[in-house]
């Protein structure tokens, strides 16, 4: 296990590369999903207001 984590002495480079890749991609995924959900709520609310007006 320690041997695996050590990555033949390249641990700092290998794990940083994987860690940054995973965090950036997960962040974009989650923030895109959140913005989409918020926009769905906003469209529904605007539609409801419109019906109320007429």
């Amino acid at each position, binding site marked *: 296990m320690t041997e695996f984590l050590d*990555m*033949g002495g*390249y641990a700092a480079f*290998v794990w940083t*590369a*994987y860690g940054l890749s995973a965090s950036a*991609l997960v962040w974009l*995924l989650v923030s895109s999903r959140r913005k989409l959900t918020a926009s769905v709520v906003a469209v529904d609310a605007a539609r409801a207001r*419109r019906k109320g007006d007429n």
Partner: protein
Amino acid sequence: MHRFANPAQFNRLADVVLPWAIGLTVLLSVAGLYYALFSSPPDYQQGESVRVMYVHVPAAWMGMFVYMVMAAASFTALVWRHPLALLAGKAAAPIGAIFTALALITGMLWGKPMWGTYWVWDGRLTSVLVQFFLYLGYMALWQAMEDEEKAGRAASILALVGVVNIPIIKFSVDWWSTLHQPASVMRLDGPTIDGAMLVPLFLMAAAYQAYFVVVFLWRMKLEINNRKLSVMRQASLQNTETQMEVAG
């Protein structure tokens, strides 16, 4: 009403594709990471540091692929005035920017132990950095103008001009002397790296591709909703104005 017909159709199609794309992203990521970190051999020269390749090369490929998606969408938007195409470019840009940034950063983390330096100003690294700035410029132009039609057109023109950078990235390692290795997978005479390394490389590339489909479709739906909101806002503004005129 026919203006909304297209987005409605798009949303239906996206909802069919999305569950499959999400499933594939999870499956391919797990398999790809397993092969990349456990089940593939260290390189005979680079040792374990070669594992950076499995996140570096797919990110670099995707950076270029997404750029071509953005450019094709921009072309369609400019020539045929297709409203969805404009939104497709806008949806793709941040994803491509992230992939390009990751290609640069993971490349630096691979360069330091292998070349002895994080960065060189050679053709490959510089042209990929230019691609990153093209993405930033495209996104900035969208933000810079109040009128969305004008902003979209300006951003699309930038995206198309920037296409010239794609062959420069691809052939930079053949044209100029560099520390970067030449193509070893996308070659006319076939890949020159070992099959045991091609498996994790292709799995990770496929995972990144599936990930792109998921985030791209979500962002397309988001942009369609934003467009709907701004149309409704304008309509209700006009409504209030008419009511005020009638009342006044």
